[in-house]
């Protein structure tokens, strides 16, 4: 219900924008992330960028933002779909300083390039690494994934 309100408000502000609800998340086009985020922060009082992460869907990448509005008690899941051959998205660092480290972490583990980020370095893994560990196709000689559980009866 609340997410519908947010969607409607964004639609009223940007009539030409394709804003969809998928599951419990709001999906906005990549090109308009910055203006939607600015609108969310300044006019719908989402003053807290709680978490930034990504989900590797194998054929595409989802950048996921959890924005929180303390005054309205709404946690909004904002998603941007990125094609695998163009993993770039605008940084939201200027809107929410907390996005700085969170975006660095997302870059470190998924390889999403946040454009205009002030300090886009790896945060956990060694600087000289070239691969991105949380991607589903991650391979290393010393990393052997456990076989997926088959599910015991009971």
């Amino acid at each position, binding site marked *: 219900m609340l997410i519908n309100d947010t969607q409607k408000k964004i639609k009223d502000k940007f009539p030409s924008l394709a804003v969809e609800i998928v*599951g419990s998340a709001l999906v906005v086009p990549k090109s308009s992330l910055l203006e939607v985020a600015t609108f969310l922060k300044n006019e719908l009082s989402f003053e*807290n*960028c709680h978490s930034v992460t990504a989900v590797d869907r194998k054929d595409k990448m989802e950048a996921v933002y959890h924005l929180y509005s303390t005054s309205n008690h709404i946690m909004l899941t904002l998603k941007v779909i990125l094609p695998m051959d163009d993993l770039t998205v605008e940084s939201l660092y200027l809107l*929410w*300083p907390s996005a700085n480290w969170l975006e660095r972490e997302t870059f470190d583990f998924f390889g999403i390039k946040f454009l205009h980020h002030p300090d886009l370095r790896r945060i*956990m893994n060694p600087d000289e690494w070239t691969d991105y560990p949380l991607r589903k196709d991650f391979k290393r000689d010393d990393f052997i994934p456990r076989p997926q559980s088959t599910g015991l009866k009971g």
Partner: protein
Amino acid sequence: MGEELIVNMGPQHPSTHGVLYLELKLDGEVVLDCVPHLGYLHRSMEKIAENRTYTQFIPFTDRLDYLASMNNNLGYCLAVEKLLNVEVTPRAQYLRVIIAELNRVASHLVAIGTFAQDLGAYATPLFYAFSDREKIVELFDELCGSRLTYNYVRIGGLSGDIPPGTDKVIKDFIKYEYKQLVEYNELLTHNVIFLARSKNIGILSKELAQAYSVSGPILRASGVRWDLRKDEPYLVYDKFDFDVCVGTVGDSWDRFKVRLDEVTQSLRIIEQAIEAIPEGNPVSKVNRVFRGTGESYLRTENPRGELGFYLVAEGGFNPYRCKIRSPSFSNLSVLPALIKGLNISDAVCVLGSLDIVMGEIDR
């Protein structure tokens, strides 16, 4: 203007609370710039979660914030329960509140003790705090057979009921701890040296705290009355009468004081909860192995702030993706802004008052 000097503080340094490496640019004693380097304790918990069933991942959450393992167990289990729409019996909910608050007390005691240690109050406050914490740790040992990594909260309930007589032990502890808190106040709170070291050091404004998504006692010390237990109650927190402790200035002393006050509030919650534990069976009836679909994001109020679990399930026995939003990570990100212009000894004070745990920052 003297010569600029780069000093590496950590990763092996007693006051960095684990393996944190701070690259400090100094002019004499004054910190000009600070670049934190993380990852020395990185174990890739999120990748591990993708390779385990939902139940198998619970023991790993113990190793996130290892001073508040019960709270981590609880946060993860609540997120999975939200994904599965599982109802938990009232008895399990009350017991969960009690163990979560006991662990909050234990965690805050460590924070208070180590903070005083960082300020040069060598050993005495630390040993006071640790001997109090020991009582809680021993109680948890009775509950689940482990002193540090509990694995007690399960999806859909708890791993077992409390042994008979536990309520007596907890009541005795509460009585004892109230007496101890008076002593902490006399020993530290208004101690002249302690005040001189921590008052007006590292002031974190309300605006800066919110901009950096700081949470927990640090946010409240900056004067923001925000506590998930009060503002978005989960479990049965809405049934208890307790106050949200806030500071006024947002300096290191306020952060210490908020933690000390929160111990009292946690004891009040436990006092009320223990009188009202309903009868029933708290043991989980959910199958150990199950499939999940959908997404859930859930946050709980941990001793260090808001711990969030973002679970994505695609019908398999394992989570497809498990993102852990750890409070210390965001709390630490504000450190460079806080310690610029301070003396190096005050930087240690600010870092101690932030009360970080590297286990949940590096994950």
